[in-house]
């Protein structure tokens, strides 16, 4: 019973880190959505240079660990004079990383919009650009909702990695507590439960979003 009581007792101390996690996740997701869409558009464009740059970016990001990317941004960039505070560095690292994965979600969603609809739009006087923005992209967003939601949940869990670049998120807070009180079991159990409490309701929302997307498809 001590274990349960101790776990509960640790909670308030960890909750302090929740706003940091929210800040990281929302900031990084916003960056990933915008950059991911741009990369997806570059990958389907007819300019080979754009396609090449986007593909290269994708390969580099997917071919290296997120942890290494975060470390690189925080510890290597200062050597060329670019110093970034821990939280912005975390947002940047997570955002750049997830942008690559989201771009693949967007790209396949964009290509999944049937060609007949783009022809219909063109026949009605939409320009190619307007067809893309008014017909294709809105529909690809609907299709992407589920996968985006799943990546968002994964990103919340990946915020734990920013503990190595001095962001006092949940794990780092737990580490600090642990070094002060040595209640290892209670502290890390409480941390794990806290992640669960955040991600479980979100996965329910994703399920609902996916069901909605299918209903109109």
């Amino acid at each position: 019973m001590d274990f349960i009581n101790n776990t509960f007792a640790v909670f308030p101390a960890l909750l302090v880190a929740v706003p940091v996690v929210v800040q990281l996740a929302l900031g990084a997701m916003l960056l990933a959505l915008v950059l991911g869409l741009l990369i997806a558009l570059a990958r389907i464009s007819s300019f080979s240079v754009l396609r090449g740059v986007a593909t290269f970016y994708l390969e580099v990001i997917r071919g290296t660990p997120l942890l290494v990317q975060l470390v690189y941004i925080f510890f290597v960039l200062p050597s060329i004079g670019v110093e970034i505070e821990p939280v912005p560095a975390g947002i940047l690292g997570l955002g750049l990383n997830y942008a690559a994965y989201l771009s693949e979600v967007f790209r396949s969603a964009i290509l999944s919009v049937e060609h007949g609809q783009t022809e219909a739009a063109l026949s009605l006087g939409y320009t190619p650009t307007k067809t893309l923005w008014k017909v294709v992209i809105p529909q690809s967003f609907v299709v992407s909702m589920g996968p985006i939601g799943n990546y968002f949940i994964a990103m919340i869990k990946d915020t734990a990695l920013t503990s190595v670049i001095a962001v006092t998120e949940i794990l780092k807070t737990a580490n600090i507590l642990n070094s002060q009180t040595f209640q290892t079991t209670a502290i890390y159990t409480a941390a794990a439960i806290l992640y669960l409490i955040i991600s479980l309701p979100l996965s329910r929302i994703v399920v609902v979003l996916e069901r909605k997307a299918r209903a109109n498809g």
Partner: protein
Amino acid sequence: MAEDTIIDVRDVHKTFVSETKRTLWNRLTGRHHVEKRVEVLKGVDLVVHRGETIAILGSSGSGKSTLLRCINKLETIEAGRIYVNGHLIGYEERDGELIAEKASITAQKRTDIGFVFQHFNLFLNKTALGNVMAPLRDVKKLSAAEARSVAVPNLEMVGLADKMENYPSKLSGGQKQRVAIARALAMEPSVMLFDEPTSALDPELVGEVLAVIKKIAQQGTTMVIVTHEMQFARDIADRIVVMDQGVIVEEGPPSRIFTAPQHPKTRALLSRSGILPA
């Protein structure tokens, strides 16, 4: 060009070359890359006058859809000219050469040409009303209220006053096609092009769509219909155009085409459809 000429197709040649790069942008802008070639239109001439209803008949693969798609530049052409309402479609002419025009100018010309597809091609994320309103808002830049006041009567005209809030997934094939017709008509084009509008429908739904098309024809709309519905063509067309292997082999009023066809291909087509004795 006579004043009542709406469509003027002159000696149009179209060759399909298999594409190497099928990027979305290439498909949107109609740019293709060269490899294998099939000549699908081999010098087509066709004039359509204001208020006329033209039915294009022909066996599968004769180039009917391609001709229709060229008229609103869903396909490129290599030679010839296509004018709609006096405007050269898809190209600028410089020293007798065709030069691709800006996509935005083509888009503007397309607003004057309604196109109805075999497979409806409704916007799946919009209701019936949303489908009709979308181009009014996005292309014609009408306000929501104005777009609605144009869209609603068009949906009523095709008999869908009670289905306006339905998404395509909650409409039958016949209803979807009627939404597509209303969507094209709402743009008030000078001409309506129909590419086999009933071919994708269950037999029991064909009638409701044909009835709507007939109603539009009777309102004096200029239209060109590619169809395999012989009786329907005979019933509503002012002129029948018969295509075979990329050329127009015969044209004339239905009364003559259906009773005294001149070209062997027309005769073959009509006997295959059971209209002439084999």
